[in-house]
């Protein structure tokens, strides 16, 4: 229950509002019960006044309503009824404006807390969890938990207070009749609980079958050539139809329960009314009750049914909110490891840029095999190092360790001779400009995306960085220039433009260390050459780690490391490596031939 207590902490901030809202709701229900009372009074009082029958004319009804001894009785009751209903309605408005609004505010707080946590969690967490799952927890689950604070709470208070008032009133009139009238209501509640639970469980099954149908369609449509080649259209049709049929059947089972739902509610409510007519009728005949009481009871029962039915629904909602909360709580209590620790040396306030790997081995969390094995390398400050190797050889893993996106499993990484775990994380990352392989850009303006690299960048600085990354001219061609929005709601940059924007984002930091992970792969060799020529000036004086598949990009590097299966297998300058006639020289020769082929 510690978990639930933690959840209830969120109520605290809005305690006043929630108490007020609960009072409003209670008061609203209090006034609501006066409506049947005035209905009853009118009927009872009218039956006690004996006016002789008058001719059916319009004049005489005006007479009765406005100008007779009875007109005051009629008007008083009608006006009081309207008064009660106005008060009750206004209070209901006030309730929703307090309780439901508060639940949205609590949701706001909860979302902020979760996002805050997401910002702090290390990459280890993100590689452990499926990103879709994290997403669901941060979005859908929060919405479900919100129902606990909002509708679930409101309905509970509503049911309790309304039942309290109405049953009290009913008992005052007739305890016996009350018992009879309430008889079907527990069934109503239980039934609503059962049905909403069933719908929930079964909807999941149906959702799965729905995905199966979509999966079948996907498989058929994406293999359309094969299907046509083997003339298997009819067979595929049959397979689709089978799933479609299974979906129909499952859906119909849910439909059966759903088609029971409303009619059963209707039946139980109607039963209450019939019981009232029957039992109250007998009591009226016996002279214990009046006709007005029958009317009163029918309205009471009508007022009770929805809150009673919602009770079952609310219990179900509550269970779901709790399940969602548990999932969220898991994220919130996840521990944050990579942050600065005790052995961080806060004295360090400057980085020169010498990078050294000492017997570094690394295993991704949960993985069986090592992604890096005993890697040793040293890049002096200001040097330009290149890392080459086939896909999957561990290049990207290697560079991700430098800004501590992950911590090494064995061995150590030194910068300026200091273990990077003792350098303040903020400083370490500040000193690095990384251009990742997938060039992730946000759905924001281009300017904002470049400025992302630093704080309070001026427009000049942004444009300068864009110029250095050779993307400024492209950006200026857009109508809104640096204000152009990217992503779903904006435009899509070409691969090359994206990469250069990401380079600009790294350059604007003016970092000591710059890391380029295959950052110009999307442009052709000639364009790359031109960009590099400019870029080299910028990179001068910075330690550069560069991953590339193109020899032309890396042949001028101070040192080249050839990685295979997570280990450095060759190292040296371009010339040295060519002389070795090893893997590097094979790669070089292949690229020469490819180039020749392209030129034929």
């Amino acid at each position, binding site marked *: 229950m510690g978990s639930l207590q933690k959840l209830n902490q969120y109520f605290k901030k809005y305690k006043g509002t929630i108490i007020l809202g609960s009072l409003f709701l209670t008061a609203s229900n209090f006034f609501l019960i006066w409506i049947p009372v005035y209905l009853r009074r*009118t*009927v009872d009082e*009218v039956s006690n006044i004996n006016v002789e*029958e008058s001719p059916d004319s319009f004049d*005489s009804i005006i007479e009765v*309503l406005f100008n007779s001894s009875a*007109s005051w009785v*009629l008007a008083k009751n009608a006006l009081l009824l309207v008064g009660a*209903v106005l008060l009750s*309605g206004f209070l*209901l*408005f006030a309730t*929703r*404006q307090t309780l439901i*609004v508060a639940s*949205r505010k609590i*949701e*706001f707080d909860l979302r*902020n807390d979760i*996002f*805050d946590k997401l910002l702090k969690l*290390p*990459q280890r967490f993100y590689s452990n969890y499926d*990103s879709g799952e994290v997403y669901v927890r941060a*979005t859908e689950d929060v919405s479900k938990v919100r129902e606990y604070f909002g509708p679930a709470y409101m309905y509970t208070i509503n049911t309790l207070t309304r039942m309290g008032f109405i049953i009290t009133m009913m008992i005052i009139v007739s305890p016996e009749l009350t018992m009879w009238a309430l008889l079907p209501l527990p069934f109503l509640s239980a039934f609503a609980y059962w049905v909403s639970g069933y719908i929930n469980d079964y909807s999941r099954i149906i959702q799965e079958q729905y995905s199966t*149908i*979509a999966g079948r369609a*996907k498989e058929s*449509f*994406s*293999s*359309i*050539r*094969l299907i*046509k*080649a*083997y003339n*298997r259209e009819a*067979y595929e049709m049959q397979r*689709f139809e089978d799933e*479609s*049929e299974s979906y*129909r059947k499952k859906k119909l089972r849910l439909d059966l329960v*759903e*088609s029971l739902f409303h009619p059963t509610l209707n*039946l139980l409510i*109607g*039963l209450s*009314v019939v019981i009232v007519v*029957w039992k109250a*009728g007998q009591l009226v*005949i016996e002279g214990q009750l009046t006709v007005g009481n029958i009317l009163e009871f029918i309205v009471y029962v*009508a007022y009770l049914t929805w809150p009673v039915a919602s009770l079952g629904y609310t219990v179900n909602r509550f269970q779901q909110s709790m399940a969602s909360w548990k999932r969220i709580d898991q994220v919130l209590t996840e521990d944050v490891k990579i942050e600065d620790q005790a052995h961080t040396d806060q004295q360090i306030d400057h980085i020169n840029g010498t990078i050294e790997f000492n017997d570094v081995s690394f295993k991704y969390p949960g993985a069986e095999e090592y992604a890096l094995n005993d890697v040793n390398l040293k890049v002096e400050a200001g040097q330009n190092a290149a890392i080459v190797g086939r896909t999957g050889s561990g290049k990207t893993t290697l560079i991700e360790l430098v800004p501590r*996106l992950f911590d090494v499993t064995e061995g150590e990484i030194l910068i300026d001779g200091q273990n990077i775990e003792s350098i303040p994380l*903020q400083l370490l990352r500040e000193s*690095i400009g990384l251009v990742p392989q997938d060039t*992730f850009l*946000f759905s924001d303006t281009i300017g904002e995306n470049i400025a*992302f690299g630093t704080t309070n960048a001026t427009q000049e600085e942004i444009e300068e960085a864009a110029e250095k990354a050779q993307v400024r001219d492209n950006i200026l061609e857009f109508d809104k220039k640096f204000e152009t929005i990217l992503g779903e709601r904006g435009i899509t940059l070409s691969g090359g433009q994206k990469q250069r924007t990401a380079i600009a984002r790294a350059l604007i930091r003016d970092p000591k260390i710059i890391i380029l992970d295959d950052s110009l792969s999307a442009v052709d060799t000639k364009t790359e050459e031109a960009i590099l020529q400019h870029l080299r000036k910028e990179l001068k004086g910075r330690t550069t780690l560069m991953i590339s598949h193109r020899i032309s990009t890396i042949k001028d590097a101070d040192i080249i490391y050839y990685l295979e299966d997570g280990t450095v297998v060759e190292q040296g300058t371009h010339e040295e490596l060519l002389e070795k006639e090893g893997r590097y020289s094979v790669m070089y020769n292949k690229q020469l*031939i490819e180039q020749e082929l392209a030129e034929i």
Partner: protein
Amino acid sequence: MSNSTTDKAVDSDLLRRLYQFIRPYRWYVLLGIALTLSAAFMGTVRPKLTQIAVDEYIRNKDFQGLLWIVLLLIGALVGEFLLLVANTYLTRWFGQGTLFNLRNAVFKKIQSLHVQFFDKNPIGRLITRTTSDIEALSDLLSDGVVNIIGDMFRIFFILYFMFSMSWELSLVAISVLPILFYATFVFKAKVRVSFLNVRDQISRLNSFVQEHINGMGIVQLFNKEEREREKFKDINAAHRDAYIETIFYFAIFWPLVEIIASLAMALVIWYGGGRALMGQVTFGILLAFIQYVRDFFRPIQGLSEKFNTLQSALASSERIFNVLDTENEITDPAEPEKIGEVKGEIEFENVWFSYNKEETVLRDVSFKAEPGKTIAFVGATGAGKSTIINLLLRYYDIDEGSIKIDGKDIRDLTLSELRSNFALVLQDNALFSGSIMENITLGNPNISKEEVIATSREIGADAFINKLPNGYNYELSERGQSISMGQRQLICFIRAMVYDPNILILDEATSSVDSETEETVNKAFKKLMEGRTSIVIAHRLSTIQGADKILVMHKGEIRERGTHQQLIGKEEGIYRKLYELQYKDELLPTVKSE
């Protein structure tokens, strides 16, 4: 063949077209309407019965009569219950049936369309047409139509009973309706706008979260946690405020409906009370009216909801019918020639082709494959090799020239007869989820289990299949990810062999086969080509050195032809360069780190 009605009136009413799918169920729809009618009557007659109970029996102290009327009430109640259950289920049943037919029709149509249609439309969109667009009709078909009619019946009966008891009091009671209509109208308009805003805010919030989960590494690398936290707060606040606005409208609307209903009650009790004093209205009537006033509101609210359902359903059905109306660009000839079993002579004569008008993919390609011989195509990616396959199977029609099989133009044959002469082994997407057996036979009942097993023995794949749990019944996951590349290829080979055609088309896998299965694959490959005209798109040159003819494609043209020996001898030849390129790769010593 498909029974596509060649209706030229594409623009005819969507509802009428939808009706075509409901038509098989039309008698059930009528039954549903009849049930609804009865249910509406039984639901609305009960206040009238309570009126009789009060006026006739309770007032006259007639216990016996009261008991009868109570039994009648219970009868009406249970009757309504049964009718409602039957009717709801019935409408759901034919609704699901209609959706089922519609879904299958869309799938069938899409599957029958020309391959270029699949190039132009992303798979995701096609899936949407077969799934969620159909689902959007669900509300309309399973609840909508019949319920709209039901709501109208209810309103009609309530009015009928009210007016039959007292027309004056009825007019007084329904005098509040204009206020209700007006309030509902204003509310719907306001809520619509503010819901659009809410939807916007939700998607903004969600995509921000999604994006930041994916790009969290970047945020952390650039020390942007603080700033992104602030940004999220703003978006989160906008999201909260959008909701708070709709809360306001609902907070006004629901109490208002309650107030209007109570206002009607107050009017009934006031005016009716006056009439009762004059002895013209009985207490039973008052009692019935109070109930009717409350019952009246529900169907009116219901009707305004249904209207929205109808609109969104129509939008979906338009998209669905657009697909169903798509013209198939590759069709059978009007008077197809018969070809029967072919010898397997293939001839391309001056073939020109482009996928889109701008870029010519094949330029003046001519070649001839003799029956039983192997012809191999090599070339860099994008040279036009795979296009040859696409044209031969008539996935696309050529722009100029002709393609002949045994001397007959492929456009003169039916598609199914043409294609039945080929066995195709594709590099990707070749396996489905399902058992290995199903993947080999593709559900063809003419291929026996024994045949499959014999064939797989012949090419040496039997051993590995038997090692799998359940053997031939082993369930493959999507695209066969659960077995190795080489094993997948072997299964495709078995499939091609059991279909036993005279022409084999083989698009060799790009990725390298694991060394364990490589030998088996190579052997199987040779078996497969025996006695068949084979068109091989080769990526690994080592496999086609024995081909009768090698055609080197480069930028859409055939640049070199000859046997391996002839081509390798050309000093500056393309083939030779390609060969060197691969040779280099194979020279690389594979270092296995332990």
